[in-house]
C-alpha cells in the first residue's frame, strides 16, 4: 500500500475542510473523523495539510540525495 497523508485522530475535529479541497478522493469523513483512502490519483499536493486548522493531517517528505538511490 502506498503512503497516504497521516491523520492524527486526536487533533481531527471532523470539520471536513481537507475533504473539500482534496481533488482525488483520497480523504473521506467517517464517524466525524477523516480517513485516508489509498488511491492512485493522490499526487501529494499537500493541500489537505495546508488547509487543516488543527494540524491534524500531515504530508511528510523524505529528503534524499540522488547519489544514494540504488
Amino acid at each position, binding site marked *: 500500500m502506498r503512503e497516504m497523508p497521516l491523520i492524527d485522530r486526536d487533533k481531527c475535529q471532523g470539520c471536513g475542510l481537507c475533504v473539500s479541497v482534496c481533488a482525488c478522493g483520497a480523504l473521506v469523513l467517517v464517524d466525524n473523523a477523516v480517513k485516508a483512502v489509498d488511491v492512485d490519483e493522490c499526487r501529494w499536493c499537500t493541500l489537505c495539510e495546508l488547509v487543516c486548522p488543527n494540524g491534524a493531517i500531515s*504530508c511528510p517528505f523524505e529528503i534524499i*540525495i*540522488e547519489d544514494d538511490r540504488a
Partner: protein
Amino acid sequence: MTVQVESLKSVPYFSGLSESVLSSIGKHVFEKKVERGEILILEGEPAEVLYFVVAGVVKVFKTSADGKEQIFHIIRPGESFNDVPVLSGGVNLVSAGAMGAVVLNGIKKKDLENVIKEYPQVSLNIIQVLSRRVQELVALVEDFSFRHVTGRVAKILLEYAGDGTGERPRLTQQEMAAMIGTAREMVGRSLKSLEGEGAIRMERNRIIITNQKALREIAGII
C-alpha cells in the same frame, strides 16, 4: 437571497451585535455557492464585494509575470477576504479562488458603507480585524527577503538529507516552516524555486537533492 442570521454570528465584522441588528444587516448580505476552481475575484479589477467564507476553503493568490500562481493566504470558514480594497475604494490586490465546493456570504461595497454608518459597532469590529491583518502583514514583510527563506530551506534539506544508511528522516512543510520561523506557504514557494533552479526534484512524497553543490551555494554554505 438574504442569509441566515446564524451564519453572520461567526463573522468577526458582526461580532457583539444583537439578533435584530443581525437580521437587519442580513437583508444586505447574499449567499453565493461556487465549485472547485472557480475564480471569485481577479487581481486588478474594481473591488465591488466583500466576501465571508461560510463553508469550504478559498485560496488568495497572485499570478506572477510568467504565469506561476503563488498562494498568499488560506481563507477558512468565518474569515473574510478582499476587505482592504473594498473599504478603501480601490482594485482587488489579489485573486481568490475556490479550493473545493465553497459557500460564501457577500455584501456589496455600497451596502457595507450603509451598514457601517447605521451600526457603529461594526466600525469597531472592522478596526480590530484590519489591525490583526496589519500585524500579519508586518510579520510577512519581516520574512519578505524571499531569497533568505529559500536559503534557509536549502540548509534544512542538506541537514536532514538521508545519508543512504538506515532510516531516512522525513519532514512536513509545516515542520520546516516552524524550524525556519516562516509561514508554511513560504516553504512551498521556496521548494518550487529550488526545483526551478535544478537543485532538487519533487517526487510525490520525496524531495530528491539532485545538485548538492548548487544547494550549498543557495544555503550560503561554502
